[in-house]
């Protein structure tokens, strides 16, 4: 029974590929339906092929505005969270100080908390303080929940770093600042980059916390949420497809470049 044997041997691979298909199916649908020409307000049923939406991606009122707000918030949230998170990570790995346990749990808890709880409690704070909900409250919230992820990413990298490299730099008469800038930072950079990338993705895609604390400001996920009630324009799929393609292309290019570099070294 060669077929049965073959199936047995490749069962894991087949099951894995099925899962991969499950993960990618929605993206295929999003892409295909970006070329749809729906009859009604909702873009859920295939009607006919059209490139109208691709020719006019900003043709829907307010959508590109919301996209720009989301990009701005994601940009500043990434900078804020990466800066604060990297500092915490260095303090945690490199120094001994009191209340380490408290600090650790304060960083762990936001990741172990359902988003809706953080969103609701933050809203009660803002309401009690009488803060004006909008761009700034969203930014504050995003920095808050991205911070922990940066700490974890940077911490992992700094922890695996050989401390003798820094000692060597100091033995070679590098000052503390020089050691940090020319040795420590370059080695920690991949961790910091991973944290920043994660922050950007988390902030850009956040809906639950933003929904509670946005006031009348509309980010891109908020726009999509609203359109699920009012009618989904095809342009949403165009943006979704474009983001997917850009991300895949960026990652593949960086992979090719690092492969080449590795080969040159070897």
């Amino acid at each position: 029974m060669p077929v049965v044997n073959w199936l047995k041997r490749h069962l894991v691979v087949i099951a894995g590929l099925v899962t991969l298909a499950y993960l990618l199916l929605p993206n295929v649908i999003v892409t295909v339906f970006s070329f749809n020409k729906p009859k009604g307000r909702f873009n859920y049923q295939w009607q006919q092929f059209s490139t109208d939406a691709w020719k006019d991606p900003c043709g829907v009122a307010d959508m590109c505005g919301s996209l720009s707000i989301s990009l701005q918030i994601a940009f500043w949230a990434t900078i804020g969270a990466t800066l604060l998170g990297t500092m915490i990570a260095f303090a945690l790995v490199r120094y001994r100080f009191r209340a380490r346990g408290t600090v650790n749990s304060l960083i762990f808890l936001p990741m172990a908390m359902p988003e809706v709880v953080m969103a609701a409690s933050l809203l009660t704070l803002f309401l009690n303080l009488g803060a004006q909900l909008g761009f700034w409250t969203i930014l504050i919230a995003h920095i808050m929940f991205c911070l922990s992820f940066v700490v974890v990413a940077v911490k992992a990298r700094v922890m695996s770093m050989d401390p003798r490299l820094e000692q060597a730099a100091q033995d070679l008469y590098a000052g503390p600042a020089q050691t940090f800038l020319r040795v420590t930072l370059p080695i920690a950079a991949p961790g910091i980059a991973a944290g920043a990338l994660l922050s950007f993705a988390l902030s850009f895609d956040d809906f639950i916390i933003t929904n509670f604390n946005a006031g009348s400001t509309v980010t891109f996920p908020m726009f999509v949420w609203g359109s699920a009630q009012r009618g989904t324009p095809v342009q949403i799929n165009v943006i979704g497809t474009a983001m997917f393609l850009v991300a895949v292309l960026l990652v593949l290019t960086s992979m090719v470049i690092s492969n080449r570099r590795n080969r040159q070294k070897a």
Partner: protein
Amino acid sequence: MATVTEAPPLAPTPEKKPPRKRGRWTPYWLLLPGLLWLIVFFALPMIYQGSTSVQTGSLEEGYKVTWHFSTYWDALSEYWPQFLRSILYAGSATILCLILGYPLAYLIAFRAGRWRNLVMVLVIAPFFTSFLIRTLAWKTILADSGPVVSTLNSLHILDVTNALGWTAGDRVLATPLAVVCGLTYNFLPFMILPLYTSLERIDGRLHEAAGDLYAKPWTTFRKVTFPLSMPGVVSGTLLTFIPAAGDFVNAELLGSTDTRMIGNVIQTQFLRILDYPTAAALSFILMAAILFMVTIYIRRAGTEDLV
């Protein structure tokens, strides 16, 4: 994309060297801004929420702390079905994620060879398309007249799920099945990444050793691979269950009024009905329930050093 795989949020990170002591005040200066941020915008709000939950009053007249604890009792007795449903749906989604995610994580770690990076990219890439857009795509996939529903129908699978109460009529949309399917889809990468990280650390020679000792592949998996991947299983299930239990997006977009989860209730209470004390109490109960379950789970799984 090696960068992301290096940093699964809950992967155990053993402390190797004791931190050294340098400038006495330096760590505090480094910690100050970030911790202040977390204290003011994470811890303090929890206290405000606790206080709001025991207040009485109205929007017009304002709220006062009256230690009105019966809000908790009222909230629980009115919304316990939604609580139960949240735990049930999130639990089912977590189990499904484990069943679906494990083979893929295993495939990436041991069987993908030169395709490893590409598969990894494909697992992460969907993240870059807004999850709301991707969730809406399930409306198309599970549409009443679509190929998925008609296939399930002709195979009489829908008859079974109807009998179990997972679906109703000849549709999948607006049923518990659709919500669980959406939750599973949305949180699957959070299962796969930690699983992959812990599988990848396993020394391949252990598999060979098990084989040399006449263990069949299944025995090797049960006795060697799976136990060694436990840290990944624990953090993966946590990373899936916690956000799934508080989610309201899938229940709203793919479900109906009969599939409302506790997240939906909190959202409507806060943003539409504006009953802040009830909403705060519900949110507090959810938080307490999850922290309780997570603590028990971590104790039982025996991995307490998750951060």
